[in-house]
C-alpha cells in the first residue's frame, strides 16, 4: 500500500462518479454521483496528507465534508421543487426554472 495505490483508487472512483454524472437523468442519481466524486477527491486529500507528513490535508478533507453537506441540502431542495412542479425528477425539466 503506497501513495500510487491510493491515487489509483481515487481516480477510479472519480471516473465511476463521472460516468454516473454523465449517464443518469434522474436528479437524485446525479446528486449521488457527485457525492462519489467528492469522496474520491477527499481520498486524495487524505492520502497526500499522509504521505507528505503535513496534517493540513485533513483540514481540507473536513472542509470538503462541510461543502458536500451544503451541496446536498441545496440539491435536494431543488429536487423537491422540481418534483413539486412536474411530478418528476428528471433534470431536463429544470429548464423551466429559468422563467
Amino acid at each position, binding site marked *: *500500500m503506497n*501513495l*500510487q*495505490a491510493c*491515487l*489509483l*483508487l481515487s*481516480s*477510479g*472512483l472519480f*471516473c*465511476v*462518479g*463521472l*460516468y454516473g454524472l*454523465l*449517464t443518469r437523468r*434522474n436528479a*437524485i*442519481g446525479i*446528486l*449521488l*454521483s457527485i*457525492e*462519489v466524486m467528492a*469522496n474520491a477527491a*477527499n481520498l486524495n486529500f*487524505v*492520502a497526500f496528507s*499522509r*504521505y*507528505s*507528513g*503535513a*496534517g*493540513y490535508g*485533513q*483540514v481540507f*478533507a*473536513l*472542509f470538503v*465534508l*462541510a*461543502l*458536500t*453537506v*451544503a*451541496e*446536498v*441540502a*441545496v440539491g*435536494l*431542495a*431543488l*429536487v*423537491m*421543487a422540481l*418534483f*413539486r412542479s412536474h411530478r*418528476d425528477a428528471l433534470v431536463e425539466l429544470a429548464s423551466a426554472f429559468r422563467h
Partner: protein
Amino acid sequence: MAETILFYIFAIGVLFAGAQVVLRRNPVHGALSLVACFFFLAGTYVLLAAHLIAILQIMVYAGAVMVLFVFVIMLLNLKDEELGTPRRTIWKGIGLVSVVGATGAVAWRGLGSAYDSVLAHGAATQLTDMAKHTLPGAPFGSLKAVAHAVYLNSVLPFELTSLLLLVAVVGAVVVAKGKI
C-alpha cells in the same frame, strides 16, 4: 502486509459499491450502496492513519447525509414506472469506453514516477515549514493535531465554512418552500 491486504479489500469494496451507485436504477438501492461505499472509504482512511476523518465520514456521510437522501427519496415515492425503462444507447457505450480509457491513461501516465519526484522534491521544505505549526506529542491524524490545524491555523476558512452552511440552509428553505 496485513495493511496491504486490507487496503485491497477496501479498494475493491469501494469500487464495487461505487459502481452499484451508478448502475442501479432504483435510487434507494443507489443510496444504500453509497452507504456501503462510505464505510469502505472510512476503512481506507483508518489505514491512512486519519482516524478522525474516518469517524466523521461515518457519522456525517453515512449518518446524516444519507438519511437526508433516503428521506427525500421516500418522500418523493418514485415508483418503478416513473423511473422509465432502461435504455441502452450508443452514448452509454461511448461513455463507458471513455471512462475506462481516462482511468487507464491517468494510471499509466500520471502515476508512474511523477508523484514520487514531486513528493521527494517538495517534502523537505514543506515538512520543516509545517513542523513549526504541529504540536509535539500529537501524533499524525489524532484529534489534537487536526484540531490544532483547524482552530489555530485555519480559523478564517473555518468561519467561512459556517457562513457557507448558513447560506445553504437559508437557500434550501427558500427553494424547497416555494412561498415564504
